[in-house]
């Protein structure tokens, strides 16, 4: 009941804001105006037909509540939103949590011959009141990646223009975490639940106007890349077909790392040298045309782990997992099997073969970049049965072999010893490619040299 009241108050506050913006029109007598059916039809039609790269706001699971509609005019409506995941919340700089269910709404505007929908999220600041909102309104096109924000102080619209923001873009202002969700992985009786958040930067209001909140700007979160998402369009098409053979697959691995958009993201990860892991996934948005997109770079703020998000469905599927190790280290056994826990859930089933063919796990380390592909899909998938038990055994053996190797080779790097351990344990399951991190990236398959039994790059014949 309290929740409903809060929503109502927030909703009314919003309407008040819009009222101010709209030259003080009388609006209260229009609340509960029935929604025109064509607006709902238009929304549902667009939702069905359009697939676009989602931004951090529109990737939240929600649905319009067509019973909570305010029709401002024949061409402007406000629609309530039900957030489907009750765990979703936003966290402000002051570590205050706000449930999205009370803060999100949809707007519908009619222009250029069609209805246009925008999803909005209210982020209040200290001092915001129910009847006079102060804070940021993030507005995203419901069916395009466009996203922007505007700011209010006590109901007044501070910034005259909608400022565009990109997820992860760093300007001057405030970092917030958003799209926090509880992710539970369960395998073989073992389950782990972790809260995962996305980060976004909101430029502080400095566009003039009165009533701007005072005080120093918060320090930017140093963990976030400076301009991830800038540069070439985040879409790249693969032309080289992967192969389970290490040499035959080399061209595909090199293409996938060196295409402009791919390289841009990988370079961002390379430049992040502080003490936590960073990550992003690669999403195949067109299975027919083998087009890939990268998700925004993020961190869970942990030094030796990052959680993965997988997506699948008619619009494509996640096929790549990229992350950094903020210490001298080769891939871990876990790194070879990223995404395995989600494999059996991939729908439609026909996509599973695409997943194993195009799977890649990329690990950026102190000296090298590694790319892992699947050599034997049956063996790789077999790890999924009693995964926790098998990976525990693998991790132990990996440690023992690494220690043995270092004892035998006193000047070996930790990463070399770990490469030896990985190749000893998993050379029949995966292909492991390595490139120097500096200079031109040229990935070559790793092998155990037949004479020295040490890891070495395989010189594949052209």
């Amino acid at each position, binding site marked *: 009941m309290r929740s409903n009241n809060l929503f109502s108050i927030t909703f009314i506050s919003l309407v008040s804001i819009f009222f101010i913006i709209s030259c003080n029109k009388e609006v209260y007598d229009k609340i509960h105006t029935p929604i025109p059916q064509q607006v709902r039809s238009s929304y549902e039609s667009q939702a069905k037909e359009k697939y676009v790269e989602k931004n951090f706001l529109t990737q939240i699971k929600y649905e319009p509540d067509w019973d909570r509609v305010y029709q401002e005019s024949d061409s402007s409506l406000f629609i309530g939103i039900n957030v489907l995941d009750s765990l979703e919340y936003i966290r402000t700089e002051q570590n205050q949590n706000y449930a999205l269910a009370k803060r999100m709404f949809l707007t519908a505007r009619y222009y250029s011959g069609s209805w246009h929908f925008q999803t909005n999220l209210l982020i209040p600041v200290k001092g915001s009141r129910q009847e006079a909102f102060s804070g940021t309104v993030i507005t995203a096109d419901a069916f395009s990646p466009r996203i922007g924000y505007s700011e209010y102080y006590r109901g007044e619209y501070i910034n005259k223009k909608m400022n565009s923001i990109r997820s992860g873009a760093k300007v001057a202002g405030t970092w917030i975490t958003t799209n926090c969700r509880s992710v539970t992985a369960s395998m073989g009786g073992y389950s*782990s639940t972790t809260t995962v958040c996305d980060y976004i930067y909101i430029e502080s209001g400095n566009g003039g106007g009165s009533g701007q909140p005072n005080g120093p700007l918060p320090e930017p979160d140093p963990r976030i890349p400076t301009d991830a998402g800038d540069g070439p369009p985040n879409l790249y098409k693969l032309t080289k077909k992967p192969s389970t053979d290490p040499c035959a697959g080399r061209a595909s691995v090199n293409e996938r790392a060196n295409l402009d958009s791919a390289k841009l993201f990988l370079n961002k990860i390379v430049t992040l040298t502080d003490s936590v892991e960073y990550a992003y996934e690669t999403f195949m948005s067109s299975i027919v045309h083998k087009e890939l997109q990268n998700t925004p770079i993020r961190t869970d703020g*942990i*030094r*030796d*782990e990052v959680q993965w998000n997988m997506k699948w469905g008619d619009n494509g599927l996640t096929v790549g997992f990229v992350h950094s*190790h*903020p*210490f*001298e*280290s080769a891939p*871990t056994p*876990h*790194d070879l099997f990223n995404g395995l826990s989600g494999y059996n859930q991939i729908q439609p089933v026909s996509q599973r073969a695409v997943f194993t063919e195009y799977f890649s796990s990329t690990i950026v380390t102190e000296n090298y970049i590694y790319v892992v592909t699947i050599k034997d899909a049956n063996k790789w998938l077999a790890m999924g049965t009693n995964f926790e038990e098998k990976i*525990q055994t693998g*991790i*132990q053996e990996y*440690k*023992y*072999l*690494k*220690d*043995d*190797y*270092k*004892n*035998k*080779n*006193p*000047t*070996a*790097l*930790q990463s070399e010893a*770990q490469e030896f351990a990985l190749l*000893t344990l998993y050379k029949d399951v995966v292909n492991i490619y390595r490139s120097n991190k500096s200079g031109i990236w040229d990935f070559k398959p790793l092998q155990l040299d037949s004479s020295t*039994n040490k890891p070495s790059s395989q010189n594949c014949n052209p």
Partner: protein
Amino acid sequence: MKFNILAFLLLFAFNCTKAQTYIQGEKVVPLANIVNSEFLSATKRLSMTQAFDIYSQRRSSPLFKKPSDLVGEFWLVDNLLINIVSRELSATRKENFQELRYSSGPQGASTGKYKNQYFDTVKTVNNYNVFISYFFTGNIKSFIVQDKQSRYKLSGTIISTNSDIKKAEVFMDTLLNSITFK
């Protein structure tokens, strides 16, 4: 005839020498030369053949398939096989123990999610620093020692039977407390 006897004696002497190898490995130095420890004296060391007989019953490693593959020195204390590889730091790589914690443990160990499966710690004992790491269910308990004067690195393992896994964990502290660099 004299030649045959001489050849036989030479062969016998050669075999005896091989059987009595107590230290092996690139740039490995005798532990007794650099530390004092009641458990790790030179006279109590196992030969490589003796060590391998025990080692091969408890673990198999592709790097150690025969006695001559083994590295370091070995002792047997209360049925716990102790292997220590001692080197001057200049002959190997100095370890950053905090970094090593992250790259040695299971992924995510720093969050505590593996606290029931894996143990590691960095601490100071006597006149050295030590990084201890092991899986609770594993029969190999590892430690790396670097003396405070940055002269030596010891890479040690306690290899137990599966029934002595807990005993090895308890003995780890006893063993480390017994070690003092000269």
